[in-house]
Every structure is written in C-alpha cells, then in structure tokens.
C-alpha cells in the first residue's frame, strides 16, 4: 500500500525540510504571542532566565521550562487562555479521571484546524466519504465524541452520533444502519465484541470495515483480537484533551506507528525523570508544543505518555513523523512491593489467555504498611458460575503468568462482566486505595 489517500496531502507528504521551516515560523510566532499575552509564560521564562527570542530552532526549545498538568489545574478555569473569552466558541474539559478537570477553549480557527486534523486521521485509518461512521465516544465536555464527529462530517462521511454506552442499542444500530466504521476506545470495542458473541449475532450481520480506536493505551495483541472478533481493520489514534482532543496522531494502513500532526504540534521525547532528551529510538515521555492554537497554546507540555518517535519514511507516502503505540503513562506506573508495573503488561498477559477478557483493573490497597495489589479480571458468566475447580484453575493460571511477566506476585480475583468501572467509555485501569 503506497501513496495512500491523504486528506491534506500538501501537509501530510510535505518535504521534511519544508516542514522544518513551517514549524520554525510557527514556533517563533507562538513564543512571541504567549510571552506577550500570558503572564504565566512570561514569569516562567523570566524566572528560568530564558529569552523566548533566543529560541532559533526546535532544539533550542529545550531551554524553555516544561508545562505540566498541575500548571493547567492551577490556572483553572481560564488562566491560560491566550484570547478573550468572547473569541472562544467552544469549551471542553479533560475527563478529570486523575484529578481536577482542566478547561480548554477553542476559537473558530482552532475548531477548523481540529476538524482537519481529525479528518486526516480518519482518512489514514481508511474512512472515506461513503462510510457510515458510528462515533461511540462520549459527547460532552470530553473531546472524544465531538472531535471525531467534526472530522468525519468534514470529510463527508455519514456520521451517527451514538455517544458511549447503551451497548445493545449500539449493536442494533450498527446492524440496522449498516455501520462501516466504528470509533471508540479499544476497551469499549472489546466490550461490544463480547456482547456480539453473547447475543449470538451472526458475523455476516455487521458491515464493519474499519475501526479507529483511541483514548487509552492498547496492545497489538488486543488489535489482533479486535480485528478477528469484529472483522475489521483496526488503527490506533492519539490525542489529548489538553492539546486538542483526537487528531494529534493516527495510524495509516501500515499499522506501524501513528503519524503526528507536526504542522500543529512540535514533538520531543524526554526522560520522564531527568527531563533530558532521550537518544534516538529510545522510549521517552512525549512533550508537545502547540504551533497553531489560538485560544489555548501550550509550550512544552508533558503529556505523561510514554512512546517512541521515528522520522523514517513510511511506505504510505506520508512524511509526518510517527510515534509508536503509547506504551503507558508515566503516572500509570505503579510500584508494587518496589517493582515497577505498567498496566499494559497485565493486558498483554490477559489477551494471550483463553477464558479471560482484557477487561481488568488493578486495585491497590495497604495492609499494615504493606502494599497489596489485586488484579480484578472480568470473565464470562459461564466461568463464574461454573464449577469452582475450573474457576480456581483459571485464577491460578492468571496469577502465575502475571508473576512471571511482572516479577512480583499479585492477587487475582475473577469478577462478573461489566462490573468494572468505566469513565467516558475509557477503562479505569488503576484504583489506588493506599492513600489514607
């Protein structure tokens, strides 16, 4: 598959040197603007003794301080808006699953750029104007629903604004409206796939062709399962509400990395602990600087997402750099009895096992100053109400495989399907009750 369709080929296949020039021009304008209009950045830059005028290249950007989620929270709600509120035409807020919400504003131009960026991701993922797109992301303050909706509508597809939840209705509509493209979180897609089997919907009843899944980290093993169960081509896409929402990056048909919207965002990878740039090809925390945002520009924002970056030419013809699948979040990293554990490791074990679903939650508790980790795994009713022997067999297998993978033993508890909490359709992977 080469020279695949692009929504904005002049950008997506731009010569990298020309792209560098474009980024430089936009970076200079952005830095001048934030320094002039936002006291937060002016104070930050001054305190760090850096003159934004000294930034002459993307590499010079390193001299500027990072912006972190807490800075956004402290500026709640409008402290970091670079335009007066009357120029803001839309407000979204981050889901707030891991703390206080942050509010993000969009000008009309911001919305236009966002829709284009999402349309790019959609076209890269195989969606065309003849597709019937079911958006099963939550519509509301969360950016997922509206974000994908605008992009799909812009490219001329027929959009079903389903929002998340109501799985039975989702499946009914999916069959009746002959949905060809599904947009949701991978965990929700898996849930729908399981529901299909439970409801004994015959495979031929669906018209799905492609699935654009994002909003949470997922593995290639999970991709294989989703492709098999839903009979579609699944691509990963990436976004975060502090920056824009979906549309920041998306996979093409090669399924080998997500093309970043480098005309809108300047990407760096840093060591999460030291903040220093990581060596080429190494895993690091993604740091993004907005290049075009009017209402809510962000300089060197620490996304908390761990990934890799490559500027190697993609066979699809796009020249935009690719980020690897998100491997986890810096704040997802949990320490169990002194051992570092990423939820994605647990997912990888569960996906590979027959009988267990990759719907899980890690419950952290503390007993007499000792950390205890329990992995809750959803299993089918058949297993749950089956004879105790089979159930305990499965539990032991999971526990053994997890201990092998993680290097630390964790307790395993089998729970009923759909019993684990979800937020905005996003799976909640870690529940930490060690606090008090």
């Amino acid at each position, binding site marked *: 598959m080469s020279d695949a369709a692009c929504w904005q080929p002049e950008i997506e296949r731009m010569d990298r040197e020309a792209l560098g*020039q474009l980024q430089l*021009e*936009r970076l200079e*304008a952005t830095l*001048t603007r934030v320094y002039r209009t936002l006291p937060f950045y002016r104070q930050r830059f001054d305190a760090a003794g850096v003159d934004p*005028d000294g*930034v*002459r290249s993307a590499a010079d950007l390193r001299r500027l301080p990072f912006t972190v989620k807490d800075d956004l929270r402290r500026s709640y709600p409008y402290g970091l808006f670079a335009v007066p509120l009357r120029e803001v035409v839309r407000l979204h807020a981050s889901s707030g699953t891991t703390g206080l919400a942050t509010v993000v504003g969009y*000008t009309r*131009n911001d919305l236009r750029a966002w829709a284009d960026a999402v349309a790019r991701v959609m076209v890269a993922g195989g969606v065309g104007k003849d597709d019937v797109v079911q958006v099963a992301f939550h519509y509301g303050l969360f950016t997922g629903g509206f974000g994908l909706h605008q992009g799909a509508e812009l490219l001329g597809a027929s959009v079903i604004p389903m929002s998340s939840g109501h799985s039975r209705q989702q499946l009914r509509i999916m069959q009746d409206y002959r949905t060809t493209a599904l947009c949701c979180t991978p965990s929700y897609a898996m849930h729908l796939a399981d529901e299909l089997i439970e409801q004994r919907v015959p495979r031929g009843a669906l018209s799905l062709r492609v699935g654009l899944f994002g909003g949470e980290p997922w593995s290639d093993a999970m991709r294989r399962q989703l492709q098999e169960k839903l009979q579609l081509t699944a691509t990963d896409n990436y976004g975060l509400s502090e920056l824009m929402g979906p549309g920041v990056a998306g996979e093409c048909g090669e399924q080998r990395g997500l093309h970043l919207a480098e005309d809108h965002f300047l990407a760096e990878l840093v060591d999460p602990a030291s903040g220093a740039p990581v060596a080429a090809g190494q895993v690091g925390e993604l740091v993004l600087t907005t290049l075009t945002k009017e209402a809510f520009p962000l300089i060197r924002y620490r996304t908390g997402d761990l990934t890799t970056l490559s500027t190697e030419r993609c066979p699809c013809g796009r020249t935009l750099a690719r980020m690897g699948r998100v491997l986890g979040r810096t704040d997802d990293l949990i320490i169990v009895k002194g051992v570092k554990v990423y939820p994605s490791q647990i997912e990888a074990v569960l996906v590979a096992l027959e009988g267990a679903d990759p719907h899980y939650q890690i419950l952290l508790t503390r007993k007499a100053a000792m950390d205890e980790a329990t992995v809750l795994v959803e299993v089918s009713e058949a297993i749950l109400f089956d004879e105790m022997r089979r159930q305990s067999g499965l539990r032991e297998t999971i526990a053994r495989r997890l201990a092998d993978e993680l290097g630390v033993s964790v307790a395993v508890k089998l729970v009923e399907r759909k019993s684990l909490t979800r937020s905005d359709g996003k799976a909640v992977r870690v529940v930490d009750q060690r606090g008090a």
Partner: protein
Amino acid sequence: MLRVRNLDVAYGQRLALRHVSLHVDRGEVVALIGANGAGKTTLLRTVAGLQRAAAGSVAFDGQDLTRLPAERVVALGCSLVPEGRQVFATMPVRENLLLGATVQYRRGKRREVEADLARVYQLFPRLEQRAGQLAGTLSGGEQQMLAMARALMARPALVMLDEPSMGLAPLVVKDLFRAIQVIRAEGATVLLVEQNARGALRIADRGYVLETGRMVLTDGAEALLQNRDVQRAYLGGEPSAAQEGERR
C-alpha cells in the same frame, strides 16, 4: 522557493527585525501585513539585497542570497517593486519598461522583450496608451502600474510588491489587485506587503503578521481574515454586517 530563516536586521543599534522566518512556495501569493514600522519593508529590502542581515539566512531556490548584491538577486529571478513607485520621471513610459528588461538582454533574450512588452501592455492597457509620455506626468495609480510592469519585464520568478496600494484611489487599487491575480495565474509567485490587509489577504493564499520586528502570526489567508486579533488590529475592528455582505 524563498526561505527566510531567523533573520535579524539592525539599523545601527536598533533591531528592525528579530528572528523572522518566512517562506514562499512556487505559485503562491503570500501577504505580509503589519502596522507602519513593523519591519515589512526592511524584510523585502533584505531579501532583495538592498539591506544587510545581521544574522539569519535568505535562500532563493536553494541558493543563499544573504550576501549577494541586489543586481545578482534580480538576475536570479527575484524582483522588488519598491514603495512609492520610484519610476524614472524624465523618461518615457516605454523606456522605463525597457530598462526593466535589462536582465533579459543580459540573458540574451532580446527577442522575447517585445513579447513581454506586449504582455504588460495587455495587463495595463493604460500604459500602452501613454507609452510615449514621460513617466513623471502619469497619475499615482499609473506610476504604480508602471513600477509593477517594469518589474515584470525582468521575467521574475518571484515578485515582491511593497505597499502597491498606498495612496491610491479604491478603484485603482482594485485594478492593481486584479493585475496581481493575473500575473499569479500566469505562473508568477508573489510576496505582497500591504497595509490594506483585507485586500491583500483576499487575494493571498497565506499570510504573515509582523509586529515591531517580530512575526506574531502565520496562517492561511482565510483563517487570518477570521482571526479576531487581525480583525481588530488590521481590518478595522470586528467585521460588521456591511463587510460581511461585501465579502459575499
């Protein structure tokens, strides 16, 4: 085609341009807008080789122009139509135009000059009517047409226009902007400096906003027309219903 990177230009101690980057791709019309004294003219003059850069680089079709003298820049296909017309007042219109073709003669393209003359006369019929008249006796608008036509006689790949609409009557401005669209359709690339931001952005593909020597915005022309900061500062406030109507 044109790549300006991190340009600093100083007049004595005072920096007129600070870290200015800009590019123009082949076939584009790019507008550079900004208030008086923002550094727009300085930027054009630096590209044209009339002003030296303190730092940064200017490249044209991959060739470094930063230290080249003005006549070499013109020979490479990059022409500046300076602000305030600057035609040779005591020479007839036709002679003014032929002077513009000097590079073409040097390139050994004598034969094409006649055809080019016919072409600019077609673009500006008024100049043909006044071919024998001294340039100094032309009206302001006609002088501006002459200045533009003279630059076109060099068959430039890139035309840089500095405030072509300044001091001209609205109808004449309309003709000039139409002429810019014609030369663009004929394959020229245009970098247009204008205080008439609305007019410039309407015929441009992209635009840059320069403020006190620094680039503060860059975007598609349509997006800049919609940008509230640009509207307030350069388009005469919020778009009124009348202006909205005019746009249609």
